[in-house]
């Protein structure tokens, strides 16, 4: 039950970028030393502000982009040491659901073809057998058989997201990477898709990497949570550890910034000063020190290591215990 399906160690992704038209080449450290793992049947929620590197982690785990350094292990095998056959099996076992249901489906393909395409790619089913499987999947995600010959533009955002989900499920993956799968959807549709994902997770015993910036969604469906800031994981642990017994000032600030849909719920809000620093020029020492309300001298020079403070509860702050215990 507790076997690890995917894990990364010291994972890095640096993008070369130019600063200005005549500027010198700089390295943008989108992911800067990430260790994480997901167990079978588990949902890991990955949260943090835009640009902190969440999607890049997702793409690295999918093998869509090569890492600059570090390793991704899928069921104990290094992703970048896999042979052709193993690699092809990996591409079947790990599937992705995208944020934007409008641009992620081919507008010239019929829904049946879109959902059936992975069967073709992996040579799994053809002809009437494929059609049967596609219709089975469509029923599972709440689409009728008559939708088989329609085009994506004939569907609403929520339905298109369902099509994307069916497509991802077609080849019975073990791990689903969902990058903000509900943020682009209408308010009253988000709950439907969240429920669908939770049902499918149960039914197929899926593991999930769930990327979102919505703390209420992440609380609802994660078993464990990792919080990222400027390319690094600053805190990780069980849902309850991270959300209710946090050990990092950034987690505290992030949670405190979320407005609560309950009027006049009295709440002490921490307002961070300043903007997210540029990942091209990250602060020295602790990356959060430019905005942290508790920063001290040592924070400007010494990067705090991601340390296990309690069993399976890690945080990267010099003062975790002093501040929060």
């Amino acid at each position: 039950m507790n076997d690890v399906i995917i894990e990364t160690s010291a994972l890095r992704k640096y993008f070369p970028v130019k600063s200005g038209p005549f500027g010198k080449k700089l390295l943008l450290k989108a992911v800067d030393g990430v260790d994480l793992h997901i167990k079978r049947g588990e949902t890991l929620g990955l949260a943090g502000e835009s640009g902190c590197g969440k999607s890049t982690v997702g793409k690295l785990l999918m093998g869509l982009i090569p890492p600059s350094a570090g390793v991704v292990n899928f069921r104990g095998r290094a992703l970048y040491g896999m042979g052709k056959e193993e690699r092809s099996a990996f591409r079947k076992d790990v599937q992705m659901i995208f944020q934007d249901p409008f641009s992620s489906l081919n507008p010239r393909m019929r829904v049946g073809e879109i959902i059936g395409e992975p069967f073709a790619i992996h040579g799994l089913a053809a002809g009437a057998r494929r059609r049967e499987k596609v219709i089975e999947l469509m029923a599972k995600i709440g689409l009728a058989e008559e939708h088989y010959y329609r085009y994506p533009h004939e569907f609403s955002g929520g339905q298109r997201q369902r099509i994307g989900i069916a497509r991802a499920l077609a080849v019975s993956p073990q791990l689903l990477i969902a990058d903000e799968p509900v943020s682009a959807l209408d308010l009253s549709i988000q709950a439907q898709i969240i429920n669908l994902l939770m049902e499918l997770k149960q039914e197929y015993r899926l593991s999930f990497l769930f990327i979102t910036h919505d703390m209420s969604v992440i609380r609802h469906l994660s078993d464990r949570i990792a919080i990222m800031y400027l390319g690094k994981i600053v805190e990780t642990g069980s849902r309850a550890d991270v959300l209710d017994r946090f050990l990092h000032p950034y987690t505290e600030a992030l949670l405190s910034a979320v407005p609560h849909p309950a009027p006049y719920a009295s709440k002490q809000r921490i307002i961070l000063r300043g903007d997210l620093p540029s990942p091209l020029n990250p602060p020295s020492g602790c990356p959060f020190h430019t905005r942290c309300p508790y920063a001290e001298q040592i924070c400007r020079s010494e990067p705090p290591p991601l340390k296990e403070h309690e069993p399976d509860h890690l945080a990267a702050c010099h003062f975790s215990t002093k501040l929060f215990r």
Partner: protein
Amino acid sequence: MNGIDFSLDEGETRAIVGESGCGKSVTAYSIMRLIASPGEIVGGEIIFAGTDLLRLTEEEMRRMRGNRISMIFQEPMTSLNPVLSVGNQVAEGLRLHRRLSRGEARAAAVEILGQVGIASPERRFDDYPHQMSGGMRQRVMIAMSLACRPQMLIADEPTTALDVTIQAQILELIDRLKEENRMGLILITHDLGVVAERSHKTAIMYAGKIVEYAPTLELFNNPLHPYTEGLLNSLPQNSRPGEPLKTIPGFVPNLIEQLPGCGFCDRCPVKCWECRESLPEMKEVGTGHMVRCWKFR
């Protein structure tokens, strides 16, 4: 967006909440009289400080916009001029409406940029929008819209494109400036959390119509319209983690093929035959609590 009746006193906040495409921005634009053709305001009146805005000439309205009534748009990047420095964009309104000299306008713009939390505003004055982060651009938009100390501000999803920690900063800023200037605020959003914390009275929109309007506390404690009720119930905060959320079945209708009856009819758990036939009027049910639903008549 027909049949909207929406009053606002100085220093107060009203919120308009609804799904995307339900007509929130159109409502705001019609207050600003910015509807592009072929859109048209077909009737009604918009009274601001005793004047019906729909009866003003285009010239009078131009003097009103950005001066006594101001607006912050959803997308700061598309509303800022990409080839004009941010400082000059703030200064422009001051020169136009307050007739300040170039030097005076620059000094005033620097001061306002500082007030909205732009660090070293003198140095930032000559920056172009693309050189700033999303949060900073939104602050520039706020500086522009507040430069002339308007009596009313319409903020259309002012923080939707921003992260929560930056959102908290911007909302605090708007609140503070609102207090200082005794300004009325219309906040358009789809975030029920923002509404709960910031607005005195809230209108819920669905399919182009306001379906419920009430003091915010009353609205959350005693939602009457089946859509409002369903929406509040569906929030993850109202279910235990891991349990299925309470959903509203069905899809959001598109506004083009609008049917005669209640726009929520297809998804409503308590509909009756009348609902499909004709649209209910807004009706006052409790003190200041209005709802558009045949259940309440």
